[in-house]
């Protein structure tokens, strides 16, 4: 009886936790995969894995990074299973155009289109930094990179994005 009550309480807590984080997890998975349907599948599968591995979450305040790691691994597994040889970015952009163009302002849609075309190795640390609020050290730990490597990727990500949006990216104003 006590076990059942305890189990129900745990389930309720875990469900509430996942519910509150679900919007952020979906956005993260979308920008990781650039494919809404795939993002939904990955988050769905990740929730199941998270529930099965719930005993490994010792501190609820660490739930978000814990779930993000599960999502990254699940996305990597999906990628391996389907053995995608290449990703046609133009097709992805066309496929997701209704959602990308849903922004009221054109300049936001332009940034979204540029993000879609950003290489994975630059897009992922940028999402972790800007969308998820990770520090450089946290990104380095999550992506298993050195701190300077993370900073280089973040620099290149912004340089490419801003250049694609017609912004000044000169390092030397005299150039």
């Amino acid at each position, binding site marked *: 009886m006590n076990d059942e009550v305890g189990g*129900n*309480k745990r*389930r*309720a*807590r*875990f*469900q*509430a*936790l*996942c*519910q*509150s*984080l*679900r*919007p952020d997890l*979906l*956005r993260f998975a*979308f*920008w990781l995969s650039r494919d*809404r349907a795939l*993002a*939904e599948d990955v*988050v*769905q599968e990740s*929730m*199941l894995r998270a*529930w099965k591995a719930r005993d490994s979450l010792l501190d*609820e*305040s660490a739930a*978000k990074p814990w779930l993000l790691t599960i999502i990254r691994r699940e996305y990597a597994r999906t990628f391996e299973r389907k053995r995608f040889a290449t990703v046609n970015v133009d097709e992805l952009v066309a496929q997701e155009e209704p*959602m990308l163009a*849903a*922004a009221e302002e054109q*300049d*936001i849609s332009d*940034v*979204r289109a540029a*993000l879609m075309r950003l290489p994975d190795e630059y897009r992922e640390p940028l*999402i972790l*930094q*800007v*969308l998820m*609020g990770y520090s*450089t050290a946290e990104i380095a730990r999550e992506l298993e990179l050195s701190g300077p490597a993370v*900073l*280089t990727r*973040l*620099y290149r990500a*912004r*340089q490419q*994005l*801003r250049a694609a*949006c017609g*912004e*000044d*990216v*000169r*390092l*030397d*104003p005299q150039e």
Partner: protein
Amino acid sequence: MTDHTHYRSAIMSDPHDPDPDLRAHRDSCAECRAFTEQLLRFEARLERALLVDIPVKSVVLPFARNGAQGPRRWMAMAASLLLALVIAAGAWLTLPQRSLAAAVVAHMAGEPDAWLTDAPVPDADLNAVLKDSKLHLKPDAGVVSYASSCEFRGHRVPHLVVQTPSGPVTVMVLVHEAVRNPKQFDEHGYRGTIVPVPGHGSIAVLMRDANPGSGDVERIAARVDNSIIWTR
């Protein structure tokens, strides 16, 4: 010694890097200050661009159990709802404070026109901006020279510029951003504070560092807080 190249590389990696050497370079170089303001405007666009709208119902929680019956089911649902609210509130309150301050600075840098005038905004325009946040200002609040209802972290919030004896200050009323304690910040030439308003989220007050005679930003924030009349 930081040069243009080092400075720009560093802030392109982290636009909110608080490194004092970077700040010293920015303060002494008008070109890099302008570059930073442009970068922060872009950062505000980037943050909004990342907030794509995906309906959460597209993902069901597979561990939700359907077996509970009758009153037990309702009690379980009520408990879940309560827990969701507690956890969501807890998560909200533990969000990094620097992140909120950085978002406020980035948003403000994205609307440089807000500082350009000191002429009062017509009452009708001001009331339209404040209406949705269920508040109005006392007549002694000072001249409001800019009022806009802005999208900020997924919500529409009033963004005001109020003319005070210490110069113009930007005020953002963040009904959806609860903070535990007052948080001072000093980023990219803007000084400010985010103060909690129990039951109504928080208020961010910012002023430009270069304001001649700029006073105590906390005192101004308290005055702004006292000038608000909540209607809910």
